[in-house]
């Protein structure tokens, strides 16, 4: 396949990966939470989109308006019930990892008992369509997913840069203690950030429902991939998540072309280890200071 074509595939999927990874890295930035249930919530979003599509005929792109807000509420509840009680724990990040790991297992088990472990996906008409431009073509499903992701990310960007709660979130990401000193209610900001992060995962689930097949256990593959992206970009860096997502996705697209699809995921993990070797803080991460 020619280089332009492969790059198109990589960039389009990369935009969707960026949407998926942004919520995850934002939670780390705001409150040092590594939410291993992030991908499980994505799969929940995908199943909601699947049911809406199958029973009511609602288009997956449209169902983002349902999955996003629904998972926002779930995110706020999860924060209030599970993560807030841990806030004073001296080993907070590690506790959140284990807690969200347990949560992911529970979600997988529940999805498994409702939907059984077979592959699902939605099949709107555009999912398999293409737009031909000369010698290359653009798959419409991935194009729409890319556009929807960019719209959501632009909305998030506007929210973070032009609203007061957005300022507060960014301030908390920069320095939690200092934000608290200047009057930011970090508890409420954390709840809001949790809602947004999980809500973005839910919305991404709608896109996932027609771009990929999924089953309850597939959250593990996704969380591995997303974590690789945000480590490469730098934990807690929104810019890093975007650059990491698009960059790795393009590299993986070339790897798929060279080595076949079964090895393409390997590129993400290999790059993760390479980054840990040469620049442990990631491309845009802050180096640890003692």
């Amino acid at each position, binding site marked *: 396949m020619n280089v332009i074509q492969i790059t198109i595939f990589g960039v389009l999927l990369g935009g969707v990966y960026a949407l998926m990874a942004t919520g995850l890295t934002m939670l*780390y930035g705001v409150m*040092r939470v*590594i939410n*291993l249930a992030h991908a499980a919530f994505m799969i929940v979003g995908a199943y909601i989109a699947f049911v809406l599509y199958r029973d009511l005929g609602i288009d997956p792109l449209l169902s983002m308006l349902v999955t996003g807000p629904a998972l926002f509420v779930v995110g706020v509840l999860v924060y209030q019930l*599970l993560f807030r*009680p*841990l806030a004073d*724990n001296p*080993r907070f*990040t*590690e*506790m959140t*990892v*284990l*807690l969200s*790991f*347990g*949560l*992911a*297992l*529970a*979600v*997988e*088990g*529940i999805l*498994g*008992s409702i939907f059984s*472990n077979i592959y699902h996906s939605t099949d709107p008409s555009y999912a398999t369509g293409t737009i031909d431009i000369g010698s290359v073509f653009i798959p419409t499903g991935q194009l729409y997913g890319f556009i929807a992701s960019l719209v959501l990310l632009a909305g998030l960007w506007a929210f973070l840069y032009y609203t007061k709660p957005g300022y507060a979130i960014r301030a908390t990401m920069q320095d939690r203690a200092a934000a608290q000193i200047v009057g930011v209610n970090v508890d409420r900001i954390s709840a809001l950030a949790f809602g947004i992060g999980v809500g973005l995962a839910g919305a991404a689930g709608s896109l996932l429902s027609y771009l990929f097949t999924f089953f*309850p*256990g597939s959250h*593990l*593959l996704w*969380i*591995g991939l997303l*974590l*690789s992206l945000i*480590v490469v970009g730098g*934990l807690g860096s929104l810019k890093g998540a975007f650059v990491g997502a698009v960059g790795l996705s393009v590299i993986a697209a070339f790897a798929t072309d060279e080595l076949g699809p*079964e*090895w393409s*995921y*390997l590129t*993400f*993990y*290999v790059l*993760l*280890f390479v980054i*840990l*070797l040469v620049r*442990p803080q990631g491309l845009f991460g802050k180096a*640890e200071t*003692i």
Partner: protein
Amino acid sequence: MADAAPAEPVGGPAVSRRRFPLSARGGFLLVVVLGLLAVPLLYPVLVPYAYVLQLLTGAFMWVAFSSSWNIIGGYTGYVSLGHNVFVVVGAYFSAALFVYADISPFITAAGAGVVCAALGVVVGLITLRTRGDAFIIATIALMLIAQIGFDNWMWLGGSSGIALPPLHMSEAALVKVPFYYAMLIVAAGAVYLSYRIRHSRFGLGLRAIAQDEVKAEAAGINTRAYKVVAFALSGVFIGVGGALWGYSLFYLRPEIFLALAVAADMVLMAIIGGRGTVAGPVIGALLIVGFNEWSVSEFGSSELNLTITGVLLVAALLFFPGGIIGSLRERGRLPRILDWD
């Protein structure tokens, strides 16, 4: 520190304890070990023989796994969510030698432990450059790399698996016996290793790292070397146990060992029992093995089992972060027999 207290009066507690050849705890352990050694001898009376042996063999395996996980995840405070990589590497190492070189896994299992330790050093040198957070992520990535690797490694059967020549005995039920004794040795070895680490300068260093890595480093501990060695040691008995587990199945598929539940159970057992204690992972393993046995026979569904595992993990972290041993000790109710720290 014994040498820091030269003024201790003669005949104090340290000396009087030595007057008896065995402490209550030592006697208790001796009885347990002798009892476990005797179980397979009850062949004609014990019914159902194969089931009991299999259940106990599984319990030994999980004792070894969670005690080993505890070395890095408990003492050192570095949570690994990909420790089942050592299981799959151990299982396939011995399986490959059996299929292609005809050497019994009972012999090569020790080699599997060495291979896993070496793997631990290599992976540890890369991933333990980071402090904490990225390490956890790297362990998940490691599990997924192993998944891709073993699923596509056709020489070892790929995702469809590899069959081993089965073991034959005069009576079918007796096939369980060698696995029983071998796994008992693995469990004893893992617990002994954990105990020795807990009571060594090395273990003290690990616990210092868990408490405050920066201060530990300032106190002159080579934290990186300590962490890498701890990670490697935690792989040894998981590799040996994995080799035996793989053989006992006679048919290996990567997804048996690389299931998320395998990684999760080790962590859950150590946390429920009490992270960073010697007895905690043992108690936790016995409890969870018993509980899983009961819930599978009662409800049967593995999906539900996964949910229960997750909920238990969440509940333990929120309400008993110290696990059974930690909570009992906090209340001053920990029996001496279980206090191996």
